[in-house]
């Protein structure tokens, strides 16, 4: 019987990253019953990855901001709340989250929902990116800081934005030789990030720490460079790198080949808004914040009553933003439940952190020219093995919309549900890099779950 697989709470929190932990901790402190659902193995989310208990951690270097992370994880762990790790949420409506955990089908019933699902790496296809050994920047950080596994001997780190730095330091602390660290954005464009960094003491300290780490590791960040392609027999052996112009278009005359056995690619992040869309929350396209974002008011309320969203789902901003917004959402719920007013500093901090993040991240807006690296035979959709040429043919015969390209070649219809190819599919198929990414389709299941999980879903 599935009848007993129901959990009740005052507040359900989706995600145990910085935003979800901050919200849950504050809600629990106010005496509310909180249940946190997280697909990962331990609290912390992708940014504050923790090693399994007992694994050696002495060699991992961490930036100053991670002290906040550890404090939050400790405070979260000490809070009177329920964390359910390994929980895949697959269906949702206001006040209800259905999830699969250890192969069983569960329902969380709650009065308020806080969405803190985080983000995932934006992938931009290039020749050879399907070879084992090409990973996202986030994947390499998870490997080192989440599992203590050494990715390889000689690494290439490419991409755009602040997340390249922790990838380089994670690799360096694992003893991997970082052969090249390539930031596609030009140095002068990156200067636009300066006011956001200089105006925020914590971010400045963070930047200086990374500078020292890179220097100590002998890694020099190359601005206006990226990877053109990767080659190897069954795994990564070589990479071709070169300069790009201000819009990210490869300058083929600058290409040169280096020997590497692992490539980390991080071209920014994409907000995870699928659960919000399924709940009916309004969204809007904010390219500088990573794509389609959930719309929230000044107290993190979405357009759907009882549903709050914090952190990356409202636009990429980083851990500090997520923590501040998590606390703000919690304060708004506590006010409603307990009548306690929202402390002015809580609201101000959320605004301040978001502003600082926006000021920094706008310098690293996705460069459309990077799409020109993909060749006709480059695979665009990895699930269904669709090449760029096939996607282009679909766009001609079926139409240039996202839907048309999908039905014309089945790109985006595999198990990742277009999370990997979706952000660049239309630009690649139509040869129109200016086209924005399409709004993800809100469909159940949000993540693939067993047929029997759907069948055994508790009602209530």
């Amino acid at each position, binding site marked *: 019987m599935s009848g007993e697989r129901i959990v009740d709470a005052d507040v359900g929190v989706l995600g145990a990253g910085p935003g979800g932990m901050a919200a849950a901790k504050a809600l629990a402190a106010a005496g509310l019953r909180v249940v946190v659902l997280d*697909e*990962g*193995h331990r609290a912390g989310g*992708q940014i504050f990855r923790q*090693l*399994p*208990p*007992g*694994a*050696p*951690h*002495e*060699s*991992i270097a961490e930036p100053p901001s991670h002290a906040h992370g550890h404090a939050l994880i400790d405070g979260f762990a000490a809070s009177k709340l329920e964390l359910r790790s*390994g929980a*895949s949420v697959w269906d949702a409506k206001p006040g209800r989250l259905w999830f699969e955990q250890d192969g069983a089908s569960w329902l969380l019933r709650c009065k308020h929902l806080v969405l803190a699902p985080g983000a*995932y*790496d934006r*992938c931009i296809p290039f020749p050879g990116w*399907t*070879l*084992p*050994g*090409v*990973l*996202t920047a*986030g*994947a*390499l950080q*998870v*490997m*080192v800081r*989440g*599992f*203590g*596994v*050494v*990715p390889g001997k000689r690494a290439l780190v490419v991409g755009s934005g602040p997340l390249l730095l922790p990838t380089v330091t994670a690799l360096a602390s*694992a*003893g991997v030789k970082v052969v090249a660290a390539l930031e596609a954005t030009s140095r002068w464009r990156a200067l636009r990030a300066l006011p956001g960094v200089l105006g925020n003491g914590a971010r400045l300290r963070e930047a200086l720490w990374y500078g020292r780490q890179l220097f100590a590791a002998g890694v020099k960040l190359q601005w206006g460079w990226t990877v053109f392609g990767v080659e190897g027999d*069954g*795994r990564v052996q070589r990479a071709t790198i070169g300069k790009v112009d201000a819009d990210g278009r490869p300058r083929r005359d600058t290409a040169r080949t280096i020997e590497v056995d692992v490539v980390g690619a991080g071209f920014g992040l994409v907000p995870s808004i699928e659960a919000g869309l399924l709940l009916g929350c309004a969204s809007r396209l904010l390219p500088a914040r990573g794509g389609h974002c959930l719309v929230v008011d000044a107290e993190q309320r979405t357009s759907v009553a009882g549903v709050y969203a914090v952190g990356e789902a409202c636009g990429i901003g980083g851990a500090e933003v997520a923590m501040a917004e998590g606390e703000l959402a919690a304060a708004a719920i506590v006010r409603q439940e307990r009548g306690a007013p929202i402390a002015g500093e809580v609201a101000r901090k959320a605004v301040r952190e978001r502003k600082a993040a926006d000021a920094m991240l706008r310098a690293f807006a996705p460069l459309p020219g990077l799409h020109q690296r993909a060749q006709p035979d480059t695979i665009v959709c*990895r*699930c*269904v*093995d669709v090449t760029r040429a096939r996607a282009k043919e679909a766009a001609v015969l079926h139409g240039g919309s996202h839907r048309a390209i999908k039905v014309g070649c089945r790109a985006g219809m*595999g*198990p*990742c549900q277009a*999370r*990997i190819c979706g952000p660049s599919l239309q630009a690649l198929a139509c040869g129109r890099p200016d086209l924005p990414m399409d709004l993800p389709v809100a469909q159940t299941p949000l*993540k*693939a779950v067993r047929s029997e999980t759907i069948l055994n879903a508790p009602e209530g």
Partner: protein
Amino acid sequence: MSASRLPGADARPVVAFSFEGRRVEARQGDTVAMALWADGQQALRASSRDGAPRGVLCNMGICYECLVVVDGDTVRGCMQVVRQGMDVRRGGKP
């Protein structure tokens, strides 16, 4: 400890499982994908069209590139924690 792990004393118990019929030693708390990576196995699945090798891309349960068959069920290698004695096969075999 293997050179493919961070240095230092690992206090975790060893968990042994089988990959394609071969014994692999992992540590408690490893995922299948990370245990296999540490063991030098990066190709976890064959592409459904041309059989080309695929491995971990996102390492956080998004991309489904690391699909493996664990005791008969197709699962994401990066989300599945190792269990003593489990039978793991590459995904995508006919």
